[in-house]
């Protein structure tokens, strides 16, 4: 009997690579340190089985007190929900538009000057790395309590997110058409608008839809720090022990988020 290897004419190579490489001593030491730190972090994270078990009855009681949801304040809740959604929509849209212009400057091939490239990259990274609640606190302190602070927060948050993904999308498009337009004598602006943007459009739409979903979710919590929207209603209801009203608010948040996600799925499938 011949082996399958012999039948198919495959040679027996002596120097096949190992399936797995053993880590070097140095790497092994680093892995070990990493595992130690994780174990130490377990204690630091307050993970506690006992507390969880003791907390279960409380959670059950809370859920009990939340049912049935109380709909008497549905009018003001609906208004606050509408305001939350408007804040998210307007903030995200303005953010998306600003992101587009910043992203052109922040993509290497399209940027008119390296200094502009690095500074816009930095601005976008800075917007992204400071969390939205921190921005909200800062804006509440500067423009005052209310929806405007929330809208500003969402604009900045969207720039951090879309700026990066738009720039990456523009850097990834096929260079052939760009080069073709360059040989026609087109300017850089013409090339960006007529070759780069159309090719990156699916990616732009995708990121923008994610940005809107993200904006809706964050607009819900911004109220907790006084930046407008439904969050403040939820906080008041919880502080006043009006758990049935709180339940109504949580339900409506759930419905809004689901509705926006469904909308975004539909658009995406139409567009791709």
């Amino acid at each position, binding site marked *: 009997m011949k082996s399958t290897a012999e039948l198919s004419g495959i040679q027996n190579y002596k120097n096949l690579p190992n399936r797995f490489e053993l880590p070097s001593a140095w790497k092994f030491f680093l892995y070990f340190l990493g595992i130690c730190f994780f174990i130490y972090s377990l204690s630091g994270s307050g993970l506690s089985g006992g507390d969880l078990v003791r907390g279960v009855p409380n959670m059950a009681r809370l859920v009990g007190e939340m049912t049935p949801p109380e709909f008497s304040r549905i009018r003001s809740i609906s208004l606050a929900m509408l305001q939350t959604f408007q804040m998210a929509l307007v903030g995200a849209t303005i953010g998306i538009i600003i992101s587009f212009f910043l992203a052109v400057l922040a993509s290497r091939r399209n940027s008119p000057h390296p200094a502009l490239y690095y500074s816009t990259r930095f601005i976008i990274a800075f917007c992204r790395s400071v969390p939205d609640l921190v921005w909200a606190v800062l804006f509440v302190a500067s423009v005052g309590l209310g929806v405007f602070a929330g809208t500003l927060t969402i604009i900045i948050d969207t720039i951090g997110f879309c700026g990066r993904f738009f720039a990456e999308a523009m850097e990834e498009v096929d260079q*052939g058409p760009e080069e*073709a337009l360059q040989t026609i004598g087109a300017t850089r602006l013409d090339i960006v*608008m007529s070759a780069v943007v159309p090719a990156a459009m699916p990616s732009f739409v995708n990121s923008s839809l994610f940005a809107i979903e993200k904006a809706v979710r964050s607009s819900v919590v911004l109220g907790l720090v006084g930046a407008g929207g439904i969050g403040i209603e939820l906080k008041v209801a919880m502080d006043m022990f009006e758990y049935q009203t709180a339940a109504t608010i949580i339900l409506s948040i759930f419905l809004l988020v689901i509705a926006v996600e469904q909308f975004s799925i539909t658009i995406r499938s139409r567009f791709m």
Partner: protein
Amino acid sequence: MLLQSETTYIDSDMISGEEIHLAVSSLAKSFDGRGVILDDVSFSIKKGDAVALIGGNGSGKSTLLRCCLRLVEPDRGEISLLGMPVTSLRRSPLRALRSRVGLIFQRHNLVPRLTVLSNVIHGSMNSGWGFRRWRQGFAPAEIREQAIGCLEKVGLPHLANSRADQLSGGESQRVAIARALMQKPDFIMADEPVASLDPKVGREVMDLFVNLIKTENITFLFVSHDLEHALTYSNRLMAMKDGVLHLNGETKDYQTADLHEIYG
């Protein structure tokens, strides 16, 4: 000194009584780590010539074409294209010159997701008006009509509204030719324009080229690996080998057998 050499150049034009569309002298180019790609290349092409450029893979044909439009910056040498000194042009006259030369690639390089008509209209990009050339919807009526006219010349007016990424290879290459015609070019350079097309469609596209350059009085320089095409569709033939111009003469003086040598 400089002035004098320019005068002599114009004089030699007068003597031959024919306009020179492309004159390259002592052109050299090397890439870091790749050594010499073009080595002292000199030739000239007269108005209305159809010139085939052949040569093995990596012999520098594409680099030569790109140097002529300064898509690649040459190291040394002089290039005069349509009477303009390519090597010393500033950005905006260079763009103006490029717009008079249609360049066709092996890959059609159309913008996907845009319509065929928008892609053809891009050909008039350098005639001013910025955003009115970005999409067919923004373009003035006469530009849209011209673009349909160019599509008629390549036989595809019925595809004006199709998306560019849904065409066959042959159709795409025809649209790329229509885009080049939209430039109202005096010169067309084509780098292996039919290499990815089947033999029948490839011949059709080459026939189209040759008819167009006759009727529109365009000078034509094309790169091909197909010796039959090189001999059929040109009146002049040049061959590159390792960055050096080996053959340069009338196509009728060559047989297929002569040409095989340069690949050896």
